[in-house]
């Protein structure tokens, strides 16, 4: 007899087997006997899972370990000594001493009987079916030894016609979704899809319609097909479907994959783990990896389906150069391009000084690549003119959290949300921006957690079906600090703060000073109401709910940081978490939702002009010593230029060359005119990217980029998790991005000899305390790790500040509300705020080159019915959107999601150029641009503005490529 004690198998990342039901979290262990084998499992485990632990796979169809047991297929029945009948093993929990038989004659007969019924309503076209070889129905028919179907199956769902008549039960295939097909003829009605949509995704787009034999999966009553339903195309149902009913179209077209590689999604800051499944070097599908700790087997439409850009014909695969931007591009060899570039940069430095060039790292690229770019700038260019586009989103997070807590990062892992009782979501729209996190949050909301949304728009999260209580505080854009102050005011004046925590973890005198400040009547919700537009009573209730509700967590996004008071808001959030004692354990914390996949990593890796890797100031001698020793150069102790300063200096004529890796600053940075002017004034603009992006219109050198599928490296997600990116296929452009950077650095005199990114990680670990113990071997073994990971925290750090703040005592900062300089007035009476939607990503360079455009083929302006009526605007009209800065035009959509006085749009399409109208106001501490508030006017229009026309003309001119020389 064998003993099985495998409580850790849920984390065994080499085991992809479907255990049938989710793991139990119980600490109590139960021992039972299954087919004579003794097995010990946590209490609450199903008999099915326990059997799997013992190595006995009980046949099943409706169970899968990502979903709660359902008990509908009845294939998994077993016999249990002392119990009547044949209970389903998936829905029966283990009990001490239980004796289970999984394979008696009676059981075998039932299983065969059930399979015979299934197959009597299933077409027998296995050989030409897309799921052939990857079908659980097929597997089970084999497993139970079904050899004969004796039923005549007169009534069925798969015959199109019967005796020449239309079969009323036949429902044709629904091909409306671009990525997956629904073929009802093959459906076994196991409800896995419906449950995945509810439990995993939280959208409730699917239901079973009808009853009995007429039960059919349906995309809801509202619509007649998948595309026009509530479905957000996350693919959870497709992954859950055991048959060919819901199948990726890529599999239908390309066949079942033969090999797979685990890697990390390159879209948002959630950092989902995926299994890239391929035939040869062709990706057949991307499926969320069940052991991914950020996503726990879930994904969104972008990571799951929108990878087609990697093989899009727009991708540029050879280097190109030109002497001036009015010339067409010339395709050249890497050698020539690198030679051309290095000479040009050195010439500029000779003429204009060492500090006349710089570079921008990418929060899209790997840690290793970012590290190399900043290393090149500091060690080879010889200055600190490095910056990153993380500036445009999350620099206030770094500043605010470092000041208050001592670390520039979020405090939790995503799993933490499972223990949250009350959550504040401020300035974030997780269902669109961070969908997989949103699904995990929604699950908790359905379990009864309380939700407080602070946002000008009524975001989708508030519409979560079956959720606990929801509060919405629809503030006027730009009044975040005012709202947070009012919440703190209520907590402090009503005595709801956590005195014990504050006394232990923070400085009581400092808090008292803060308390005196915040208790002032001018911070009361009543006093703030006029300013913020938020009902004082509603705010009081929300504040009390947060302070009293148990584990309170705060999640925030760009709606917090992209403001002139971005850093102040982050610190106000930190104050709120500290005063309520919500730091240092599961279920609580302050959690920035990072926009791009590697914003955290880009910041960690020393992208900023004033900080070396690990957030250490360039003026710190000891830190510089470490790098100077290793790199064999002398480093500048003075901070370099930030992006806006580089552009200013360019306009002034003192900054002449820039290396931009994987960012499109012309589209993503505010005040497009200013960016364009700065770029136009430079002598050498080098763009390394997948596509001729908007910035490349001003470039002299174009170095082709590689996709995340084509390189090794790591990304660090919003929970500080270092995830491996793996080379799934060879770079179509010949080199991974880090190799191209190395070519340029070496051409400029460096003598780098890296042969694999793991060596770069070794260098990062050797120089950066928080990464000290990180190695590729460790990541291989564990899948991922959260920094800090060093001798103090050998397993990494899922939750920070557990025993005390990194900086010692948590610091309360006085957060005075200062209105933004951006004001509405008679000419610009509306406030514009911007955001993103689910199917598109950032400036859209990738997602626009996929079928995701079916959900969003243009940016739309959301406007309240009242504001629309005043201006004579109808739904779908082309409107002109003007600010003090500029104007653009786009279509309007009328909705009461936004309050009167507020308009909203996305910035995914270059045609819209929403940033033409945003201002260059920015956060006082970090220069993070104020995207989220712009005073605007909206009026009727009949087409694109002059700027849009001029711009498109210039772009077309600039994108010309000479035919390759014969």
């Amino acid at each position: 007899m064998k003993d099985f004690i495998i409580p850790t198998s849920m984390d065994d990342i080499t085991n992809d087997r479907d255990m049938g039901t989710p793991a139990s979290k119980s600490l109590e262990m139960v021992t039972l006997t299954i087919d004579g084998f003794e097995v010990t499992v946590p209490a609450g485990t199903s008999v099915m899972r326990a059997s799997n632990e013992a190595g006995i796979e009980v046949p099943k169809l409706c169970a899968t370990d990502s979903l709660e047991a359902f008990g509908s297929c009845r294939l998994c029945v077993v016999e249990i000594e002392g119990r009547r009948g044949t209970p389903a093993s998936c829905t029966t929990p283990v009990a001490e001493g239980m004796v289970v038989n999984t394979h008696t004659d009676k059981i075998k007969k039932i299983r065969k009987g059930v399979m015979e019924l299934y197959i009597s309503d299933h077409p027998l076209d296995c050989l030409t079916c897309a799921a052939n070889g990857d079908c659980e129905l097929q597997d089970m028919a084999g497993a139970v030894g079904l050899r004969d179907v004796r039923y005549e199956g007169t009534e069925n769902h798969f015959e199109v016609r019967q005796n020449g008549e239309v079969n009323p039960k036949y429902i044709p295939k629904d091909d409306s979704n671009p990525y997956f097909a629904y073929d009802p003829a093959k459906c076994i009605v196991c409800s896995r899809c419906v449950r995945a949509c509810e439990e995993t995704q939280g959208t409730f787009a699917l239901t079973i319609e009808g009853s009995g034999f007429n039960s059919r999966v349906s995309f809801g009553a509202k619509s007649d097909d998948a595309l026009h339903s509530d479905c957000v195309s996350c693919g959870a149902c497709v992954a859950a479907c055991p048959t060919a009913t819901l199948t990726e179209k890529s599999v239908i077209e390309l066949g079942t994959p033969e090999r797979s590689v685990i890697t990390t999604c390159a879209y948002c800051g959630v950092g989902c783990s995926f299994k890239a499944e391929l035939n040869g070097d062709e990706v057949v599908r991307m499926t969320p990896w069940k052991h991914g700790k950020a996503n726990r087997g879930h994904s969104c439409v972008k990571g799951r389906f929108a990878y087609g850009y990697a093989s899009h014909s727009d991708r540029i695969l050879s280097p190109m150069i030109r002497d001036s931007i009015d010339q067409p591009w010339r395709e050249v060899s890497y050698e020539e391009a690198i030679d051309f570039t290095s000479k040009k940069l050195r010439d500029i430095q000779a003429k204009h000084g060492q500090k006349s060039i710089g570079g921008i790292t990418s929060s899209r690229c790997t840690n290793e690549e970012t590290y190399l770019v900043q290393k090149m700038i500091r060690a080879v260019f010889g200055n600190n003119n490095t910056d990153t586009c993380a500036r445009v989103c999350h620099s206030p997070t770094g500043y605010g959290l470092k000041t208050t807590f001592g670390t520039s990062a979020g405090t939790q892992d995503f799993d933490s949300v499972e223990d949250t009782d009350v959550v504040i979501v401020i300035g974030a729209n997780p269902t669109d921006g961070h969908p997989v996190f949103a699904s995990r949050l929604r699950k908790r909301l359905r379990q009864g957690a309380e939700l407080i949304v602070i946002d000008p728009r009524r975001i989708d999260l508030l519409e979560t079906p079956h959720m606990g209580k929801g509060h919405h505080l629809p503030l006027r854009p730009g009044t975040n600090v005012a709202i947070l102050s009012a919440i703190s005011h209520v907590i402090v004046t009503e005595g709801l703060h956590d005195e014990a925590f504050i006394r232990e973890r923070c400085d009581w005198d400092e808090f008292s000073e803060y308390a005196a400040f915040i208790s002032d009547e001018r911070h009361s919700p009543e006093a703030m109401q006029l300013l913020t537009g938020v009902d004082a009573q509603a705010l009081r209730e929300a504040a009390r709910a947060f302070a009293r509700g148990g584990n309170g967590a705060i999640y925030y996004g760009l709606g917090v940081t992209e403001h002139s008071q971005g850093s102040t808001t982050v610190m106000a959030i930190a104050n709120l978490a500290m005063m309520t004692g919500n730091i240092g354990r599961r279920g609580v914390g302050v959690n920035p939702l990072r926009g791009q996949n590697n914003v955290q990593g880009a910041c960690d890796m020393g992208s900023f002009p004033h900080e070396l890797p690990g957030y250490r100031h360039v003026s710190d001698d000891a830190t510089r010593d470490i790098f100077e020793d290793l790199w064999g150069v002398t480093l500048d102790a003075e901070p370099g230029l930030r992006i806006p300063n580089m552009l200013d200096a360019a306009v002034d004529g003192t900054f002449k060359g820039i290396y931009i890796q994987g960012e499109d600053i012309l589209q993503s940075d505010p005040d497009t005119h200013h960016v364009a002017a700065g770029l136009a004034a430079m002598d050498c603009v080098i763009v390394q990217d997948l596509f001729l992006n908007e910035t490349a219109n001003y470039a002299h050198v174009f170095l082709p980029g590689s996709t995340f599928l084509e390189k090794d490296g790591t990304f660090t997600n919003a929970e500080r998790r270092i995830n491996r990116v793996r080379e799934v296929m060879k770079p179509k452009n010949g080199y991974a991005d880090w190799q191209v950077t190395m070519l340029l650095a070496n051409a400029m005199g460096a003598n780098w000899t890296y042969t694999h990114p793991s060596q770069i990680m070794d260098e990062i670990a050797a120089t950066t305390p928080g990464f000290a113990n990180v190695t590729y071997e460790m990541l291989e073994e564990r899948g991922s790790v959260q920094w800090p990971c060093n001798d103090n925290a050998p397993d990494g750090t899922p939750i920070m500040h557990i025993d005390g703040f990194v900086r010692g005592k948590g610091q309360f900062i006085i957060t005075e509300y200062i209105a933004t300089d951006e004001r509405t007035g008679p000419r610009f009476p509306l406030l514009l705020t911007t955001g993103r939607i689910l199917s598109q990503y950032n400036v859209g360079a990738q997602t626009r080159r996929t079928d995701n455009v079916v959900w969003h083929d243009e940016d739309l302006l959301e406007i309240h019915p009242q504001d629309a009526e005043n201006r004579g605007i109808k739904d779908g009209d082309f409107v002109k959107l003007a600010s003090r800065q500029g104007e653009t035009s786009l279509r309007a959509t009328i909705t009461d999601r936004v309050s009167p006085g507020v308009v909203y749009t996305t910035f995914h399409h270059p045609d819209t150029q929403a940033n033409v109208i945003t201002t260059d106001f920015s956060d006082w501490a970090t220069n993070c641009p104020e995207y989220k508030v712009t005073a605007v006017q909206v009026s009727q229009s009949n087409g694109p503005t002059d700027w849009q026309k001029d711009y498109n003309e210039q772009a077309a001119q600039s994108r010309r490529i000479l035919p390759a020389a014969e």
Partner: protein
Amino acid sequence: MKIYVPLDSAAKALGADNVADALATAAKEAGKDVEIIRTGTRGMLWLEPLVEVETDAGRTGFGPCLPSDAAAIIEGAANHPKALGLVDDLPWMKRQTRLTFQRVGVIDPLDLADYEAHGGLTGLRNAIAMSPADVVQHVTDSGLRGRGGAGFPTGIKWKTVHDAEAPQKYIVCNADEGDSGTFADRMIMEGDPFTLIEGMIIAGLAVGATKGYIYLRSEYPDAINIINQAIAVAEKAGVLGDDVLGSGRAFHLENRVGAGAYVCGEETSLLNSLEGKRGVVRAKPPLPALEGFLGRPTVVNNVISLATVPVIMEKGAQYYADFGLGRSKGTIPLQIAGNVKFGGLFETAFGLPLGEIVNDLAGGTRSGAPVKAVQVGGPLGAYFAPHQFDTPFGYEEFDGAGGLIGHAGLTIFDDSADMLGMARFAMEFCAVESCGKCTPCRIGAVRGVETIDRIAAGDADAIPLLTDLCDTMKDGSLCALGGFTPYPVMSALTLFPDDFAAQKKAAE
């Protein structure tokens, strides 16, 4: 002069309202001071509308009445052809042991004072004076088993809920009464709603639930109406509310109208429906007693189970347990229907042999032809042939004979019944009513109809297939709809093989 006329919907369907109107008119014309009191039914359906006149000796009956009989009744003609004498002395009434139904047909269902005068609320008062655990123990000791079908001991179910820790618990009354030919739940709700309400309150106090729901089928508009009124009366009188009879303990009750599907009577499907979801069966475990309505510990009991609790608490557990046979303790309201002389409700202690019920109580078939089969336990119940008529009416006894008691409905057929047709009907019923969740029932029922059609067409191979299918459905189905449909089918096939073979011959 007091005259009692039933307001029960079965009596109304037979013209009780017209009779009541005629009585009022006749009384006026005769210048007599007559008080007409509407009551529930006594359950003698062949006598409805049964009019009762109060006399010194007791209530004398007339029935079945037509409006044209009104004048004579007012006259008090004891020798009227429809005069029945003292109702309590009628053999049908005399042979019963009316515990649960003691007040039905006797009192005005909405007269709380009359209810109390007839022993009502005594049980509740007793329960208030006891500890919750003692109440649970009392119900356990009484031997009461669920009358909704499964016969699960009510006290044990209550104990599970009592022992569960939760911020909120619920009592849910299953008043979906979907079995064809059954009407006991409706009779109680129309005739003595306070009994049900009292039973639910006692359940609430016993397990620590402060909120109850009655899930009442939409096809019972009169019962819905009466229950709603009774809840209002009970609230006003302080029987329901924050302070039940001054006990300081709360119990609130709400009436919800059902979704109209047979399977919604299955307790987990009922809970889904009550939560506003599709009426689909849930897998057990988790038991509703631990994770029921809105995921909270919930007692789900049939109307009769709950309505029997007051008499147990009034007269004592032992009193109740002394009736019955073996592990089937107490009384059972038989509901006799189909091709019979005397149909209706007959409450009696367990143990009566089936044959006595069919031939003696029901008086055999209405057609006069020999009895061919009796289906006991509603549409999912097995058929019994006359050679099994010595089976005593008890849970274990029926189980042993390959049948079940269910909700205690009996439907009687004479020798003209086509048992293959009956088997086909059972499969079809299952196909129509299936919730569609589990495979054996969802696909099996449809294949069952097809397979029986093959047998009818003379395909002998289809008989073993039907037997295999019934095994799959019986052992494999998630709930008793699919799981018990094989009972009528297989009993028809085994007891009446000729009805299946005859078809074959005809086809040859």
